[in-house]
């Protein structure tokens, strides 16, 4: 079942007979395909987490501002 290595030298391996372009472009495309499909979800996940954090920060800031405003309003009402 196990054949020997089919090439006598590295140069011969890289040449792939008459089909240098065909064989290596297919394997190159396949590598890009795998890399992109495993890497892209990671990027999207990071993006999502960053967005959600920014939103949480903004919401917290907004809540703080409204709280300060309300306090100020009730203080001015009391003094009048």
């Amino acid at each position, binding site marked *: 079942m*196990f054949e*020997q290595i089919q090439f006598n030298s590295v140069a011969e391996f890289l040449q792939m007979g008459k089909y240098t372009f065909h064989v290596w472009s297919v394997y190159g495309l396949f590598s890009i395909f795998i890399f992109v*499909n495993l890497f892209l979800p990671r990027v*999207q*996940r990071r993006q*999502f987490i960053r967005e*959600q*954090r920014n939103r949480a920060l903004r919401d917290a800031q907004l809540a703080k501002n409204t709280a300060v405003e309300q306090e100020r309003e009730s203080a001015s009402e009391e003094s009048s």
Partner: protein
Amino acid sequence: MWQWFFRLGSPKWFYEMSGKWLPWLLVLMTVLMSVGILWALLFVPQDYQQGDTIRIMYVHVPVASISLACFPLMAVAGVITLVWKMKLADMVAKCAAPIGAWFTAVALATGAIWGQPIWGTWWAWDARLTSMLIQFFLLIGVIALRSAIESPDAAAKACALLAIVGAINVPIIKYSVEWWNTLHQPSSDFSMDENSAFGPEIWVPLVIMIFAVYIFFVISLILSTRNEILQRERRSQWVVDIVAKEQV
């Protein structure tokens, strides 16, 4: 049994479980794919007619055959969405469409590169090639349909229907090489039989690559489904906790 079925439908449960599966799947994929690619590139004997282009088969055949799994998967998810309104099924269906489009495109491209030296042409309006191209357009159609409908529920229903109808193309692709006698050769008979045209030195690495690419499909589907779950459940406390904890 039903309890198990519905627990599987819980996005949170799926998110947690898939997080545990992912490292194992990645290890398994890396091992199988390294063995498969090295075997295909170094040890598979040259074909007496095709020479070294035989090595293209170990990428083209796995990618093409797994691209056919996409529509049945989306159709099953579609039925589950329509009948039980399970949210997770729709998320899986949504994420499967672009991945399936990738697989189909790579199958078409690697097929063209293989066809050029062997058939003397990059493309022909052959039954297999044309039905694969239709699958590609159908997948683009599913993606476009989802983005065109604003209401998520309506989009889920419409895409589920399109996936169920579109799955009819899969047997057409599968049997196209037998029904119409055009350029693309039928599947070879890879049996254990000694009379089979191919010895184990040809088909064992192919089987390894098919498993490796299948696992790769599952991994990319899990990865993007997890992102989809986070996106849709972003108001739930458990997602808020994840967002707070994770290092970016």
